[in-house]
C-alpha cells in the first residue's frame, strides 16, 4: 500500500484530541485517517471492521516504520560491525526498551521477542517441562475461558510429564468462579495460566487476585495478554505474575511479532528453548554455553522489522493514551450492548463490564448466516467458536457472533451495525 509522505507527516501532526465541555475524548475521525485500510469498500459498501479481537488494522505510522526499516537500515543484528548492523541493532534494542516501559517491567532483560502469544506460551511450556520444576503427579490450573493456545501447550506437557490439568469453571455470567479456584489450589499446583481478557466473551479476569492466590501455594503464574494489550494499561509488577505474553498484531503492529515478559531470575534459571545462533555464548562440539536472557530465548535471526514496528505501534497507542482508549472503547461496547439487548430473543454472553468484545446469539438464527449477511453489507464480524471450543460446550452452543472494537471504530458504525442486524434478521426470520 502506498501513501503520500507529505500527507503522512501532516496527519501525524494533527491533534487527535478535542475538548468538549471540559471533557477530553479521542477523535475517532482523525484516528481513522491513520488507517489506510479503513477507506476500503467491501462488496461495494464502506468497510466496518469489528473483528479487532482477531487482529487489528495498522496505522501508517507502523506501516511506514516497517518500510523505512527495509529501505534504510536493514541488516542482521548484534554481530555485525558495519554501520547498518549497528543501526538495526540499536533500533531493535530500543524497541525492547519501548516494550519494557509499556509493561513497566524492571529491566529489558525480561523482554523476550517471540512470534506471538502462542509462541510465548509454548516457550514457557517447553522450558518448564525440562526444568525439573514440574513432575509426575503435579497439576496445572487453567480456566474454562481459555483460548486453545492456552490449552494445547499444557495438554502436550501433561502427556509428556504425567501431570494433570485443572479447570477453573465459568459461571453463567461468563466470569470465573474464583471460590472454586481457591479449592483447586494445592501444593501440587505448579502453574496457573489464565487469560487477562477472554477473546470470546470480553470477560476481564481479576489477574491480580489470581496471581496472589497462586503465589500462596508457591505456583508460578502466566497471564495470556493477547486480548488485553490493546485495551488495558498493563503493569507486570503490579499484576505480580511470573510470565506475561502478548501478540503485536492485536495492538496495531504487524503479525509475526510478540512478547514474553518473564521474571529475570526465572529466565536465568530455566533451560534454553530452541538452539541456534544468538542464544549461545560459546560453542564447541563438546559443550555449548548459553547466552544471558533475553538472547538465550531468541535463537536465530529474529523478526527485527516486526519488533521495531511493534515499538511504533505501542508509541502510537501511548500517544493517544491507553486510558483514553479504554474509556472510549468501553463507551462503544456499552452502546453495542444496549443495541443488542433490544433485539428479541438475543442472548449476550459475558458480564456487563466486558472489554473489547461482545458475543451473542439470536434464537433460531445460525451465527454463520448472520455473519455472512453482515459481510454482504460491509461488516467484518467473527462467527464460530473463537478457538474456545470448551467454552462453547460449557454454554451448549457451537459458536457465537462476536463484535470486537478498536480505537478507530465509531459510534456511527455501532448504530449502523444495529440497522444491518435488523435487515439481516428480517431476511432470516
Amino acid at each position, binding site marked *: 500500500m502506498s501513501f503520500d509522505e507529505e500527507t503522512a507527516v501532516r496527519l501525524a501532526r494533527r491533534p487527535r484530541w478535542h475538548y468538549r465541555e471540559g471533557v477530553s475524548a479521542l477523535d475517532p475521525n482523525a484516528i481513522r485517517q491513520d488507517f489506510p485500510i479503513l477507506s476500503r469498500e467491501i462488496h461495494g459498501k464502506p468497510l466496518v471492521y469489528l473483528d479487532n479481537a482477531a487482529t487489528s488494522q495498522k496505522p501508517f505510522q507502523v506501516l511506514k516504520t516497517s518500510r523505512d526499516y527495509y529501505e534504510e537500515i536493514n541488516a542482521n543484528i548484534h554481530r555485525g560491525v558495519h554501520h547498518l548492523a549497528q543501526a538495526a541493532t540499536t533500533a531493535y534494542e530500543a524497541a525492547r526498551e519501548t516494550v519494557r516501559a509499556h509493561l513497566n517491567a524492571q529491566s529489558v532483560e525480561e523482554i523476550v521477542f517471540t512470534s506471538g502469544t502462542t509462541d510465548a506460551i509454548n516457550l514457557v511450556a517447553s522450558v518448564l517441562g525440562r526444568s525439573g520444576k514440574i513432575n509426575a503427579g503435579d497439576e496445572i490450573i487453567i480456566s474454562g475461558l481459555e483460548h486453545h493456545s492456552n490449552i494445547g501447550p499444557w495438554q502436550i506437557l501433561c502427556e509428556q510429564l504425567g501431570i494433570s490439568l485443572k479447570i477453573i469453571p465459568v459461571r453463567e455470567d461468563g466470569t470465573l468462579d474464583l471460590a472454586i479456584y481457591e479449592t483447586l489450589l494445592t501444593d501440587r499446583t505448579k502453574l496457573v495460566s489464565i487469560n487477562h481478557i477472554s477473546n470470546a466473551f470480553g470477560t476481564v479476569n481479576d489477574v491480580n487476585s489470581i496471581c496472589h492466590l497462586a503465589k500462596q501455594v508457591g505456583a508460578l503464574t502466566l497471564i495470556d495478554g493477547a486480548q488485553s494489550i490493546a485495551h488495558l494499561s498493563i503493569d507486570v509488577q503490579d499484576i505480580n505474575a511470573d510470565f506475561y505474553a502478548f501478540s503485536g498484531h492485536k495492538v496495531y503492529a504487524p503479525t509475526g511479532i510478540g512478547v514474553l515478559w518473564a521474571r529475570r531470575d526465572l529466565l536465568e534459571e530455566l533451560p534454553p528453548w530452541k538452539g541456534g545462533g544468538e542464544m549461545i555464548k560459546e560453542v564447541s562440539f563438546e559443550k555449548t554455553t548459553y547466552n544471558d536472557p533475553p538472547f538465550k530465548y531468541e535463537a536465530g535471526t529474529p523478526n527485527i522489522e516486526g519488533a521495531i514496528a511493534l515499538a511504533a505501534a505501542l508509541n502510537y497507542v501511548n500517544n493517544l493514551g491507553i486510558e483514553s482508549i479504554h474509556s472510549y472503547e468501553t463507551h462503544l461496547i456499552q452502546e453495542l450492548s444496549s443495541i443488542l439487548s433490544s433485539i428479541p430473543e438475543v442472548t449476550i454472553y459475558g458480564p456487563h463490564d466486558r472489554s473489547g468484545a461482545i458475543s451473542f446469539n439470536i434464537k433460531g*438464527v445460525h451465527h454463520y448466516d448472520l455473519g455472512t*449477511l453482515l*459481510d454482504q453489507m460491509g461488516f467484518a464480524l467473527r462467527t464460530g467458536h473463537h478457538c474456545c471450543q470448551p467454552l462453547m460446550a460449557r454454554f451448549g452452543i457451537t459458536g457465537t457472533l462476536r463484535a470486537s472494537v478498536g480505537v478507530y471504530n465509531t459510534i456511527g458504525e455501532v448504530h449502523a451495525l444495529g440497522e444491518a442486524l435488523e435487515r439481516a434478521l428480517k431476511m432470516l426470520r
Partner: protein
Amino acid sequence: MTISERQDELLEELNLFQDWTERYEYIIGLGKKLPPMDQSLQTEDHLIKGCQSQVWLDASLVDGKMHYLADSDSLITKGMIALFVRILNGQTAQDVISTELTFIEKTGLKEHLAPTRANALTLMAAQMRKCALEAS
C-alpha cells in the same frame, strides 16, 4: 426440463438481482420453501461430512427419478442445497451422474462465499452425485 435447462433458468433468475444481499435473500427464500425433511431422517448417516453447519441429505429413487430431501440448521446453507434440489429433483440417476453442475461456477457464488462455505457447495454436489450412483 433437463438439468442444463434448469441450471440456465436458475442463472437467469439470480442475474435479475442487483446485488448479492438480494441474491442471498432469494436463496434463503428457496431454502424456506424446501419441502420438510422428517426429523427421523436427520441422523448422523444423512449428515454431509465436512460442512461447518449441519446439512442432512436423503435420496431415493421414485419411478426411476431421483428424489432428494434436505435440511440444515443454517438458512443460507439450506438455501444453497435447495438450489441443487431444484435442479436435480425428478431427473434420472444417469442424468445426475453424467451432467456437470456448472451453475456453481457461473453464479460466482463460490468466489463470493467464505472458503469453508464454498467447500460445502462442492461437498453437497459430490454427495448428491454419490446418492445417484448408489441408486442406479
